[in-house]
Structure formats: C-alpha cells, structure tokens
C-alpha cells in the first residue's frame, strides 16, 4: 500500500517534470509562446515539487489530530 502510493507520487513528479522539460524545449524551438511555457510552469511546478518532496520524505506514520496545546 505504502510503496504503491510512493510509486504514484514518483510517477506524478516525473510526469510533471517531463512536462516542464518539454515546455522548455518547445519554447526554445519557438513552437510554444512564452506565455504557454509560463502557464505550464505555473501548473506543473507546484505539483512536481510537492510530489518530489512527498516521494523522498521519511517514512509515513498514520494520521493524527491537530496540535491542541499539550
């Protein structure tokens, strides 16, 4: 279960990362306007970063209730 989730996160990080690279290449080619490339970054960069972090973070515990002061 846990590894499955990690795999999914890694896949998502890779996909969005690949999209960022593809966007960069197309922009350098001149096929994609700058605005399009920026739109790709705005959507993909947060997802890529968070998924990457969630993938490489330490072992996961069960969820807990919020901090309530003691």
């Amino acid at each position: 279960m846990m590894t499955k989730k990690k795999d999914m996160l890694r896949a998502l990080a890779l996909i969005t990362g690949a999209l960022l690279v593809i966007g960069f290449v197309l922009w350098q080619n001149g096929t994609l306007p700058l605005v399009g490339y920026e739109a790709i970054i705005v959507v993909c960069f947060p997802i890529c970063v968070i998924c990457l972090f969630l993938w490489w973070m330490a072992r996961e515990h069960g969820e807990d209730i919020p901090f309530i002061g003691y």
Partner: protein
Amino acid sequence: MEMSSLGGIPYYILEFGDELVYFSPYTVSLFLLALVFTMFAVMAKPERQVDIAFGGDAYYAKETSLQELRFRRFMAIACGFASMGAMLTGDIFNFTLFISLVGICNVGIVAAVKNRHVQNAAYQYGIVALSATVPLFGAAALIAATTGTLSMVELWSSATPAVPLVVKALLVLGVMGEGMAPFYAAKAEMFRAPGAPYVIMCSLSSLLIFLRVIEVVLVI
C-alpha cells in the same frame, strides 16, 4: 486611462448579445482563481474543527451534518459562479448584478451554521449587503444616464463623456458594502464557522470583487 495599460490587452472578447465578456490577463487570472477555489468547494469535504473541552484535557471534533453541508456547498458554488461572472463581465449593470449576487451568497454560506455569533454577524452583514445595493445600482443608473452607455468597452474609449468622480465613489462604496473587504469585523466573526472550503469562498469572493472594481473604476 488606456485599457491595455491597466489589466493588459484583452486576449479575446466574447460577444454575448448586447453585452460583452472580455478576457484580459487581469480578468482571466482572477477568473481562474475563482474557478480553482470553486473546484475546492465542490470536491473538498469540510474539516472537523477541533475544540478543547474546558477544564479537562478532552477534545472533540465538530461534525457538519449532511443537510447543512449540502446547503452550504450549494451556496459556496453559487458564490463561486457569481464571482466568476463578476470577473469576466464587460458591462456595468451586469457587474453590479453579479456583485449583489455575491453579497447574498456570502450570507447564505454562513446562514446554515448553528452558532449564535456567526448568525448575528451574518445578520449584520446581510443588512449592509441589502443597503449597499442602493449606491451600487444607483451608480450603474447614473453611469447610464451621464454617459448613455453601460458597456465597459465603450466607456474606456474616449468617445463617451467621462464618468463623474462621485459616481465612481458610489460604485466602490456599493462593492465595499457587498463584499465588506474593509469592514472586517463581521467577516472575522463569520469565519468562526466550521466548513473551511465554503467559508473561504466568502473571503475570496469579496477580495475578487474588490480587485475587479478597482480595475473597473480606473478604466471607465
């Protein structure tokens, strides 16, 4: 002031009968944010607010009943649509209508909460939102009378006469009454209500309409 120097040049103008809907970088970015948060309101479950029982070390989480949840989600979605409309519309009267819709949806979002403080604040807010329609629609009517048109696209071309300053002030005051961005006291009180995805729409819609009215006032 030139339209293009404010919110950017419109990418696209949608012709919608006698009204225009325009997509400039500014309106599109505000629209997209309204859309994203409406999607959150549609998909997200409300959080369960944790409360500490007084005098002990016990805590409990408040639950939102299904009936209340459905009603509030409906109101939040309506509020999202209203603010999306207010972001894109290119017509003064249509804009004021959307804004008064935002005002009434904001009351609706917290109307179902069983909390005396929240309801009192919502009541005060509702009265302000009601009375704010007077300056709001008054401003729209005065704009129609003094310039002969209601379309923002026409108003930013210099062919029409200038809108008097006091009319712009009325419009801003009307929007402030509906969205109450600076009248923070009641909004803060309304934020006590559980149900984060819905309560956030209150604040989001008022900030968005406030941002849009700045653009509208500078353009016309």
